[in-house]
């Protein structure tokens, strides 16, 4: 389930929470928790596992389950999720594309790359393509300044982009 627009947060709980049940994730989570002297410390890595396993975003149910699992207040989990840009509290496309917008990339044409992607997919940065395939965001410095301008597609990285090569890269990936 993807969407091109932000979902009213009050409606999020009505969306399906896809992916494995929390019990099925425990096997992966318990050893992570064991790395820390306090359960609460495992919050970031646990959120990562849950987000990856469950369609790339954190459904309200996931938030509740994580809070319960780590015995931390739900408001704390919400506070953490909304603090870090890579945790998503909204549904995202199948792949998340991050185009770096910071200085080293801007100096070498990042703005033109973003313009091209917006024009090609007919969405604003931050939006999701109509086919639900990509959520395309801007990001602050990705630490790939030696290949500026650059973007990441989940774990892939692509550098020395031109407006054309950026579009071609996204369109050219296997569906």
């Amino acid at each position, binding site marked *: 389930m993807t969407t091109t627009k932000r979902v*009213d*947060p*009050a*409606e*999020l*709980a009505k969306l399906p929470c896809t992916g494995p049940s929390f019990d099925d994730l425990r096997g992966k989570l318990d050893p992570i928790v064991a790395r820390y002297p306090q359960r609460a410390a495992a919050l970031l890595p646990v959120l990562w596992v849950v987000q990856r396993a469950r369609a790339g975003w954190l459904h*309200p149910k996931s*938030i*509740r389950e994580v809070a319960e699992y780590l*015995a931390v*207040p*739900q*408001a*704390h989990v*919400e*506070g953490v999720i*909304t*603090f870090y840009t890579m945790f998503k*509290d909204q549904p995202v496309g199948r792949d998340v594309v991050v185009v770096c917008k910071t200085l080293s990339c801007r100096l070498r044409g990042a703005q033109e790359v973003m313009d091209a992607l917006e024009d090609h997919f007919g969405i604003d940065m931050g939006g999701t393509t109509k086919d639900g395939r990509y959520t395309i965001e801007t990001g602050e410095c990705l630490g790939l300044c030696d290949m500026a301008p650059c973007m990441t597609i989940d774990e892939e990285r692509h550098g020395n982009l031109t407006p054309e090569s950026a579009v071609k890269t996204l369109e050219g990936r296997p569906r």
Partner: protein
Amino acid sequence: MSDERIRTVRVTLDGQTIEAAASATVLDVALANGVFIPHLCHHPDLRPAGACRLCFVDVDGRMVTACNAPVVEGATIRTNTDAVKTTVRGAVELLLVNHHRGAVDCEEGDACELRKIARFIGIDEVRLARFRRPEPAPPVDTSNPFFEYDPGICVLCGICVRTCDEVVGVSAIDFVRRGVHTTIGSAPGAKWMDSDCVSCGECVVRCPTGSLSMRDSEVPEREVRTTCTYCGCGCGIHLGVTGGRIVSARGVRENPSNEGRLCVKGRFGYGFVNAPDRLKKPLIRRDGVLVEASWDEALDLVAAKFTEHRGDAFAAIASAKLTNEENYVLQKFVRAVQGTNNVDHCARLCHSPTVAGLVQSLGSGAMTGTTKDLGDSRCILAIGTNTTAAHPIVALQVVRAVHQGGKLIVINPREVDLARHADLVLRNRAGSDVALLMGMMRVIVDEGLHDPAYIAARCDGFDEFRESLARFDAATVEELTGVPFAQVAAAARMYATNGPASILYAMGITQHTHGTDNVLAVSNLALLTGNVGRTSGGVNPLRGQSNVQGACDMGALPNVFPGYQRVDRPEVREKFERAWGARLDDMPGLTHLEILGGVTGGRIRAIYLVGENPALSEADANHARHAMEEVDFLVVQDIFLTESAEYADVVLPAATFAEKDGTFTNTERRVQRVRRAIDPVGDSRTDLWITSEIARRMGAAGFDHASAADVMDEIASLTPIYGGVTHERIEGSGIQWPCPDSSHAGTRTLHTERFPTASGRARFFALAYRAPDEEPDAEFPLVLTTERSLYHYHTSTMTRRVPGLEQLRGEELVEMHPRDAAALRVSSGDQVRVTSRRGEVVARALVTEVSPPGTISMTFHFHEAPTNVLTNAAFDPVAKIPETKVCAVRVEAVR
């Protein structure tokens, strides 16, 4: 740390030499000496955050934030250097330009700290106008019935977030989002109401800008300092009055019991006082219908009928909601005028085993410690208490103890809210507390963790007790309690090795057919580890109602005069006969259940029911209803036409706590003033006046006190534990009994040197496990246990007349474990019928793992689903308390 509080340093503050505690911060010292330093994120109840960056001062040439800078001997502090002024002005200007209201158009007035600071600095708002943030104001969250959040004027000081964590221990809210987009929230799309918020309003009262503000708030014309009418925490409150109405409430910071903190009921639950359906006229039953009558008619009728029913056919049920003075006069009326000891009150249903048990073991049946001292315990064992719901302000001290590194052990069949703070949670089978506690004690003795020196010096009966431990081996304990023995042993070690350790308990311990045994097990455990007589240690029964401690102290009990002086002791009786000028009965009277039970056999012919509602509160409530229907003459004296009042022959309209003078004694034995804030509404009268007037119309002497203070003087003259209590002496922070004379300051911790027993020593009791009276079987396969909601109080006569509380919890819910729900094919929200051998009720289900498998729970707040028609009236042989914590039921879905 304590040294730091005593040690002082000398500093120079803006040229003035000042002596200050070494533990103080620069901000503390400045504010205490009348030097204003702008600040937004500082609050004296909270740890310094240092985030608003407004409290800059110059200390020896270095600019630091005053809120977290300790004062250092010889330091020169300057609050007004150019650098300080420029820096603070810059930060305030930045805040103002992003603020949604200018100081000019701000409606918060002087209540807004930001506005105050802007004025102090002398900000030119016109100059800033060009830079104001154009974005539209975010919407105001009005979801909570009592307060609202306006993010537009929030300065993100975080005081609300820290209060909810550090003071309340709930952490319902946190900062969400980041940077300039930060706001206060709880969950995606969640309104304030959807969070874990307990609506106590502690955040609201600390908010510096009015971003969090009371709804429907009125600035009162005047305030009256008094004591809250709800639970036994006994919080000091300022009631705000405009005209003849109560329009606000706020905590009294100087009050040692609550230090200004209040729960949702205390802060927002005053609306019942001016509820339109308050009883305003006496009612007399004519031709089967209650009709209005004059006071003369009603009182003459009551006086005539009571005269007819003098002696043991008469009984009175007093109330834990009346003042000490009123309870005193009421029991005096029963004993001196009616010539019987048939007086009891709802303590019978809650803490009679505490009195019965602790008097035997420790010599006194009350909390040995102080609410505040609980927060300094190194270990708290909370057994059979849902403290956050039933004693919210005591629970804050538990949170404080945990925040200070103290251990918390929670023992309860249900996963009560306190469990979230606990180091150990033991979920035992309902009714298995003796086995569990004895199992713990066996571990303590086996591992040598007990305190032999203390036991030898101060206790009797140890050897016999020790032998009785043999019955509680690991296998037996595990089988009886359902708790793995390793957990029992862990709890034992944690309790025994972290002192001072304090035990908290409430009705999960007492409301059993073996309630007295439970209480004795608790006192055994505390004695075993030498914890009784230690500050921040001891045995702390949490009393339920505002004056249940006082009602007991005043002798609203069938076997004792005021101050627990036994009616069967001739020398005691003679003292009271002399004082009251009447012959007094030497036989203990009937208890609560026996009074209502006595109607059936014709033993009881007239009942004077004051401020109680047995139709909902009595175990096996149908039986109580029958009794009230059957009895020849029933007088109900109350503030509303309760479910019980509907059975009355005469209804007498009483005044609320806000309409009278007197005292309440709270759970920590603190006698505190209740003050008249408004005149009694309509034609209602104080209980003191009503009872005295009945007595006078019956020709009795000794009922013409000029004031409640006069009554207290009489109480003091006859009651050694109240010997030094006068209204005048308790004006400030009350006095904790025992207070034998006017030179005595009261007693913070009981039993520090000797126990108030004949020998001066405490006693261990050998105990055996006894099963609950009624256990589940094939026909009634589930256990029903009763509980309380934070949002309601007792039979909800008061709280359900507060619309906001009704909104927060408006109906009975049958809580059950998902496993039981699945077996019954029931989901949350479904209607279910709960049936016991005695009756049935219908309510909606709430499926939750808070309930253990096999056990359901219900409150008894809702007349639409009167839970107590289900409960079992089988009672403890010593204390005569019915077993409302355990009965067998069957649940069916109502399709």
